């Protein structure tokens, strides 16, 4: 459910982007790429202002203004200098990348502790569940905005705007300043994109400099989708279509996630999906040469077939563990508390056995409400859906299922006897698809208790529903037992609940000493009517349902049907694990309970014999002990999600260490741990989707590797215990204010690059060196942290740090050349992904100029770096795993301080050392964990 409401909420946020795109793309016929940048600009402005303490609404408004200005620049370039709109958009978008970095001051701003528009909504509307509340508020806002926007487009100004886009020549001839209209439209479009950016940042809890990638396509997809829904000139309907398009788009993404599609394929699906909509709606630009031979219909058919093919392939190659979850039907005869208790205990025990609705099992729970035809249709429905197992609670339900479901495993519970309904001849010899747990209340015991309580009783009254097989058998046995004990029985039948009171009155007329009720669904449904008659007459009532004693019975002899549910759940678990019902014997209930109602006894003047009381107490203790034992011995399989941002060397090492630790000596198997590994393949949207998915699937534990995985998950989840690792600076990621005071459901490791150590070692190796050059990408959050550390360390060790920025690996060669001109003695990079992508090139260049290249990644020596002094991320993974084990063992993350852990290791490339003429002491070389010769 949360998945869908979440999708709705996101869709409503993206509706603003879609409306903006409608203005540029549909009204002005411009494909405006600027939105990729202005979306981020909106997020960046809002985030920085929020951090500075500006009111969220104001911050959001500022974001809108910022986005609009960006759009205005694009429009100005386009109209004034007649630069192609697409090109102008690309130019501004590119420029915005730098602007956004400057605005944010770093690559990523967390907003977890900050007041946002959403916290305001949460506080000011204190009804409903949070997501639902948000959905209601957002829907109202978007609908109001829709009405406003549509009305605006129908004003004289709006009309001119549309006219200018639709036919600029005509508009100009009619006195419309078309350029100004284009400017206004593009500003409007980007203002909307920025609004969505600002809202999404606040919604997901952080702004990131690369979060806008693909915004154009999102906006256009929504517009195209919306237009294919509503083909009309009416702007009200068209704008509504666009909003619905944005929402549907999010739903499709949610659907893809829901059916277990790999998030990596989402982008492909998006593209395919937009294409399909385009083809279907005939908006494809006509390919005149092709279209003559291949009419549009044929194109559409080909597109749809292609998509179907892709879908089929995805389905066919879907991972095996995503197989269909077992479907379990549960049917009970009516709302009798005994049956309810059985069902609840069953579900509870299944929960303890690790079954989660919608995750690894799907329940179909039905109640026939005492109606036999309904019972039949329920069983029919089961037969159609071919469940993996059906639990039948009560005799009628079991009977109905036996007749209809011949191949489906049936587990029965809370029935008196499986033999009278011909489920078998004995506990071990029974129908091959049926097993379960049963137990009758022994009628001789019932008579015995009545006699011990009421020694003077001679005549007993009873009643039952003759149409219920079980009840008739019970009644027969009861009458026989009573006769054997020298008692007479007045019996009467009831066929509907409304007759119960009358029947009781009739019995009461017959001069009886007590009423004894044998198990019967119908009579017990009317128990209150019975009491209405017996209470004023001070007529003792002994019943066979211990649950109902408090209603006013003198005594109850019966089973605790919670045990029945628990026993049934264990049998069900065995069957779902693959055992055949044929091999599982019927299990009779073991614990009969005798309960005595002291207040009622006092009222009736009945004296309870001490030995009877003792027996009752003993039976209660036995049941309690059994329940306690059941709870303790339940196997609890637990599921842990391991979530990594990408496959980079560092993260992969860390993940390997983590998994090795968890699986060490079969630990995870012993603990019944299921480990699901998730990887966002370096994509932001995917990371968000995975985080939400982890929460939706209610994992028992979460372990994240990398900063982004931590951030996305910390935002989406505040309850599931979460351990993180391979994060440079968790505080900068926004999950706490200090290592001891952090978000309560998580803890983990902070692994700084050993920058200070590295600078110290450089000082030791090169006593005369003066300048260290460092190259870094300011849009990488962790690179930024390292550079700050390097500045401090260089000051400490008497170096001058020469910094140059790069923003793409393509710029590396030029940057290194520029650096070489600055007369540096040592070149250093620290955990910068951009630089690490070109490590070989950089190393070769530097070696040619005899400059030692030092990095914080030991593996870089394999690529020609002189020295790599860095963290051993395999080790980091291992320690993360150890921490996770502690948390899974029951330690509260809240109580565990974040730990700073950087296992340092040195790697050397002696070949490079020789080439550039560096002489190393043998002790130093001996200390290295890895040496390339």
């Amino acid at each position, binding site marked *: 459910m949360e998945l869908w409401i979440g999708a709705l909420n996101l869709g409503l946020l993206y509706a603003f982007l879609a409306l903006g795109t409608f203005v540029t793309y549909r009204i002005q016929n411009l494909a405006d790429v600027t939105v990729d940048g202005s979306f981020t600009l909106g997020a960046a402005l809002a985030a920085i202002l929020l951090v500075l303490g500006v009111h969220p609404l104001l911050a959001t408004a500022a974001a809108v203004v910022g986005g609009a200005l960006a759009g205005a620049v694009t429009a100005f370039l386009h109209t004034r200098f007649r630069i192609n709109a697409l090109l102008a958009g690309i130019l501004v978008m590119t420029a915005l990348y730098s602007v956004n970095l400057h605005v944010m001051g770093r690559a990523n701003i967390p907003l977890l502790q900050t007041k946002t528009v959403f916290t305001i909504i949460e506080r000011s509307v204190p009804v409903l569940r949070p997501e639902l509340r948000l959905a209601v508020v957002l829907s109202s806002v978007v609908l109001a905005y829709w009405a406003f926007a549509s009305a605006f487009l129908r004003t004289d*100004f709006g*009309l*001119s705007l549309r006219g200018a886009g639709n036919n600029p020549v*005509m508009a*100009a*001839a*009619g006195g*419309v300043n078309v350029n100004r209209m284009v400017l206004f439209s593009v500003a409007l479009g980007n203002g909307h994109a920025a609004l969505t950016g600002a809202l999404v940042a606040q919604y997901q809890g952080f702004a990131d400099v690369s979060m806008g990638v693909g915004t154009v396509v999102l906006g256009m997809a929504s517009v195209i989708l919306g237009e294919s829904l509503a083909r009309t*000139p009416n702007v009200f309907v068209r704008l509504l279509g666009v909003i619905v398009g944005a929402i549907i788009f999010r739903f499709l993404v949610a659907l893809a996630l829901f059916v277990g599609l790999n998030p990596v394929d989402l982008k492909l699906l998006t593209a395919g999906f937009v294409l399909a909509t385009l083809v279907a709606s005939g908006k494809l630009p006509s390919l005149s040469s092709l279209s003559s031979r291949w009419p549009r219909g044929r194109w559409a058919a080909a597109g749809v077939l292609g998509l179907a093919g892709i879908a089929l392939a995805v389905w066919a190659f879907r991972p095996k563990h995503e197989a269909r979850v077992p479907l379990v039907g549960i049917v009970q005869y009516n709302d009798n508390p005994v049956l309810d208790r059985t069902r609840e205990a069953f579900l509870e025990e299944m929960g303890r056995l690790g079954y989660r609705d919608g995750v690894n099992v799907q329940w179909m729970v039905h109640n026939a409400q005492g109606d036999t035809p309904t019972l039949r249709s329920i069983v029919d429905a089961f037969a159609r859906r071919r469940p993996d197992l059906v639990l039948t609670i009560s005799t009628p339900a079991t009977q109905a299922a036996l007749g209809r479901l011949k191949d489906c495993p049936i587990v029965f519970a809370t029935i008196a006897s499986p033999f009278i309904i011909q489920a078998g001849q004995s506990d071990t010899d029974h129908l091959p698809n049926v097993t379960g747990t049963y137990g009758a209340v022994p009628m001789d015991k019932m008579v015995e208790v009545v006699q011990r309580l009421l020694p003077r009783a001679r005549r007993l009254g009873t009643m039952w529903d003759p149409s219920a097989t079980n009840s008739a058998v019970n009644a027969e046995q009861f009458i026989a037992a009573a006769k054997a004990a020298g008692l007479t029985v007045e019996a009467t039948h009831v066929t509907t609940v409304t007759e119960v009171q009358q029947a009781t009155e009739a019995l009461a007329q017959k001069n009886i000493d007590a009423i004894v009720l044998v198990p019967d669904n119908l009579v017990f449904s009317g128990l209150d009517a019975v009491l209405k008659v017996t209470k004023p007459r001070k007529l003792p009532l002994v019943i066979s349902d211990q649950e109902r004693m408090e209603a006013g019975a003198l005594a109850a002899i019966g089973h605790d049907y919670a045990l029945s549910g628990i026993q049934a759940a264990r049998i069900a678990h065995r069957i779902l694990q693959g055992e055949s019902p044929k091999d599982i014997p019927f299990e009779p209930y073991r614990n009969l309970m005798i309960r005595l109602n002291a207040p009622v006894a006092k009222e009736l003047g009945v004296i309870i014999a001490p030995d009877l009381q003792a027996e009752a107490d003993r039976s209660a203790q036995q049941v309690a002990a059994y329940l306690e034992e059941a709870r303790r011995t339940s196997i609890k399989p637990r599921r842990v999600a391991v979530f990594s941002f990408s496959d980079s060397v560092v993260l992969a090492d860390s993940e390997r260490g983590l998994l090795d630790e968890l699986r060490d000596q079969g630990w995870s198997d012993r603990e019944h741990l299921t480990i699901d590994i998730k990887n966002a393949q370096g994509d932001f949207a995917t990371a968000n989707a995975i985080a939400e998915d982890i929460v939706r699937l209610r994992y028992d534990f979460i372990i994240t590797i990398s900063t982004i995985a931590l951030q996305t998950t910390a935002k989406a989840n505040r309850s599931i215990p979460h351990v993180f690792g391979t994060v440079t600076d968790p505080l900068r990621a926004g999950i706490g204010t200090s290592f001891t005071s952090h978000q309560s459901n998580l803890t983990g490791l902070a692994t700084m690059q050993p920058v200070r150590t590295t600078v110290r070692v450089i000082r030791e190796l090169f006593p005369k060196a003066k300048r260290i050059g460092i190259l870094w990408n300011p849009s990488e959050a962790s690179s930024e942290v390292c550079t700050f550390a390097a500045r401090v360390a260089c000051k400490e060790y008497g170096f001058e740090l020469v910094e140059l920025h790069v923003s793409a690996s393509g710029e590396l060669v030029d940057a290194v050349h520029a650096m070489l001109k600055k007369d540096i003695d040592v070149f250093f990079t620290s955990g910068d992904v951009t630089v690490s992508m070109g490590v070989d090139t950089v190393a070769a260049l530097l070696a040619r100029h005899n400059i030692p290249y030092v990095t914080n990644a030991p593996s870089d020596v394999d690529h020609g770096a002189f020295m790599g002094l860095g963290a051993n991320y395999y080790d980091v993974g291992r320690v993360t795993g150890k921490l996770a084990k502690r948390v899974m063992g029951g330690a509260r993350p809240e109580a565990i301080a974040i730990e700073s852990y950087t296992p340092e290791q040195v790697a050397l490339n002696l070949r490079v050392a020789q080439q550039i003429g560096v002489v190393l002491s043998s002790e130093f070389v001996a200390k290295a964990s890895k040496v390339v010769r």
Partner: protein
Amino acid sequence: MIRLVGVHKRFFPGDNSEVYALRGIDLQVAEGDFVTLIGTNGSGKSTLLNAIAGSFFPDRGTITVAGDDVTKRPDYWRARYIARVFQNPFSGTAPDLTVAENLRLAELRGKPRHPWGGLGRSSRARYGDEVKRLEMQLEDRLDATIGTLSGGQRQALTLLMAVMADPKVLLLDEHTAALDPKSAAQVAKLTVAFVRERKLTAVMVTHSMEQALELGNRTVMMVLGSIVEDLVEQERRRLTPDDLVEKFADLRKVERLTPELREVLRAEYR
């Protein structure tokens, strides 16, 4: 009403595809004049209208409309005085907007376009009446998009839109050329009626010699970016369409026409 003094225009100057489209045009059109403008293909008729309307700025010369020097005014500014109908029926209307919306846009010529106020019920009623006059079966289709109308319907509507806000000058560029004969006749009839009723100053480009002489009170002939004939009063009344064709033929030397082309001309300007 309109005054052009020494107007020159070169497209792609300096390029080897340079076109010298207007070569020193001097033209005065008095208030209430209805000028028909004729000339061979590429002689610069459309360019002249564009210069008046402000689609581009001339290289030299001045343009005055209604007493205002508009030489450096953009087209949308001049729209307060000048309305236009183009040859292409697609050019004069916004295809995705409805008939009523187009009319509203036209009505706003020369007025502020506020983000409040809009298409009201009373204006719709008025549009219904105006459209009825066109006799193009448009009265029930106020809410249809223009894209669904025929060329004749569009052009009639464009004409109505042009005169709706009472401009001072109406520029018509072969506005009946792309229509079937019946619609063309109807649009021509409407043109005359509108110009007369609203006392407009009009310049109409046409390739039909009959039309050139029949409509309006003055005929201007262009060749190679210059005005070569300006016919008024008796001189104009005496001329027949064939005489006009002869006149073109006489310009053969100027235009360096081959004798064969003369026949083409005859056929074309019949």
